[in-house]
């Protein structure tokens, strides 16, 4: 097995373990920490694919800023360990079959394609910052601007809500 493959499996295992731990942990802070592990190991997987910029942004934005806000809010509310309630009926009769169906669909798609998932773009497109910015500001300029506009609206909405509470 090549070293690249070993690192891939290590990171993938870390990612899955983190995701499982996110669901199974009882304390919100522990769940948030598990989510950080998922984010960071995903960044490692991006690095393996050669998407250095995306990996760094993944850590800065998701691992750093967003998860810090999560941890901050949990600390501020001083949330304690959650209590287990009984399994919801909707989950038992709706959720479980749907989850199984999704797993089956994914598995069959992978088997059908011979284990290889086709690349959506050329693999080198995400390698350098220059190519990413050219893609971002030419091909994907409208989705990009629309997304930033959406975020701006969300910020203004948050400001309006916070202001109303004060008066």
């Amino acid at each position, binding site marked *: 097995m*090549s*070293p*690249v493959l070993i*690192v891939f499996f290590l990171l993938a295992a870390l990612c899955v373990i983190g995701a499982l731990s996110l669901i199974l942990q009882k*304390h919100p*802070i*522990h769940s948030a*920490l598990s989510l*950080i592990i998922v984010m*960071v190991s995903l*960044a490692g997987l991006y*690095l*393996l*694919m*050669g998407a*250095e*910029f995306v990996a*760094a*942004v993944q*850590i*800065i934005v998701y*691992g*750093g*800023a967003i998860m*810090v*806000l999560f*941890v*901050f809010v949990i*600390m*501020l509310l*001083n949330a304690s360990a959650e209590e287990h309630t009984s399994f919801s009926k909707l989950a038992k009769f709706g959720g479980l079959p749907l989850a199984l169906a999704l797993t089956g669909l994914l598995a069959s798609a992978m088997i059908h394609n011979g284990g290889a998932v086709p690349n959506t773009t050329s693999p080198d497109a995400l*390698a*350098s*910052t220059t190519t990413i910015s050219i893609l971002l500001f030419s091909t994907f300029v409208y989705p990009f601007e629309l997304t930033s506009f959406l975020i701006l609206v969300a910020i203004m909405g948050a400001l309006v809500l916070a202001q109303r509470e004060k008066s």
Partner: protein
Amino acid sequence: MNAVTTFLTQDGGFWVLTFVKIALLLFIVLTVNAYLTWFERKVVALMQSRIGPHRVGPHGLLQPAADGLKFLFKEDVMPGGVDKFVYLLAPFLALTLALASLAVIPFGPDPLPFKFFGHQIDLWITNPDIGLLVLFSVTALGVYGVALAGWASNSKYPLLGGLRSSAQMVSYELSMTMSVVGVVLMANSFSLTEIISKQQDGKWGLLSWNAFTFHGGFPQIVGFLCFLVSAIAETNRVPFDLPEAESELVAGFHTEYSSFKFAMFFIAEYTSMITVSSLCAILFFGGWNSPFPATPFWQFTHYLPSLILIPFGLWVLFDGLKYETIFGKLVLPALGAAIAGIGALLLAGIWIAPLHDVNEYIQGPFWLLSKIFFFLFFYVWARGTLPRFRYDQLMNIGWKLLLPVSIANVIVTAGFVLFRSAP
């Protein structure tokens, strides 16, 4: 093949070399950290007309060693009711991330003149194309050390300190990242070595540094000031040390930490000071470039290291002779003689060719280390001068002053870069 896969398929020699380099850098940085505490106490003492540490060793030089031993032998208290895993994870996280950021800092332009099993020995551990982004991602994760320490301690003061620090660090990270965008625009790269080599211009010396140059952009002096202030806030140092404000919060986030776990936070703080100082030097003040123009007229400035080393060595020598202890009488004069000897050897490079090469080789590291030292002094200087900000003032500076100013800096710089590159 991308950078990471090439890295993973290197042979054994590369790994041995890298591990040796990491061990060496860790040793140097931890020693410098220890003496930084001594330096800080001495300088602050001078500013306040005191003597500072002077009992342990000549000029208190063995004080850091004594402090280190004390940290190791203190009782390691684990308060009741803490979240054990997170409580132990927090200092580990803080220290690891602080030390990890040093891996991408380049300390000199040229590789060593000999090879290690066919591998070039560069003066950096790794030099990724996204060096600056790696640094920022490590800083972004650095918040967790402080925030989790505050939360896991299960105590009121640390919790308040942790809350303050996460709010403060998230706010100042924005202006810190924004303030270096100008530099990235001018260098057209995230790689630290690339940013430094773009600031090199034979004729102009220090005028071609990013802080002052019009070449390919706009002087980044405003960006530098924004970066400096936000970086000081990001490292939780005075005057932004609200997470550990002793008059309000006892010791803030590390109140419940004792013994070596406290020392880990301490080392992390001083290591991030070194990282920030090197970033200031690299991004805005030319990195390893000399402030003097590289013309034959200024050639004599290449002997500046020996000009500093010889008098300093002689001073250590004669100062040591005054001491009555064995350490003072023997070690200090020997050390002084060695320092003066190295200086004299470098000076002899005027006549002897191999020594001349050595002298040329150390120019880059010499200037970079001098600049780093200056910014470390600036940290101590600020600590000795400025009172702590109030929390609302801190937030106002971050969001209402630094962020708009650094965004304006980005727009102006982008305009200049566009204007210059237009046909």
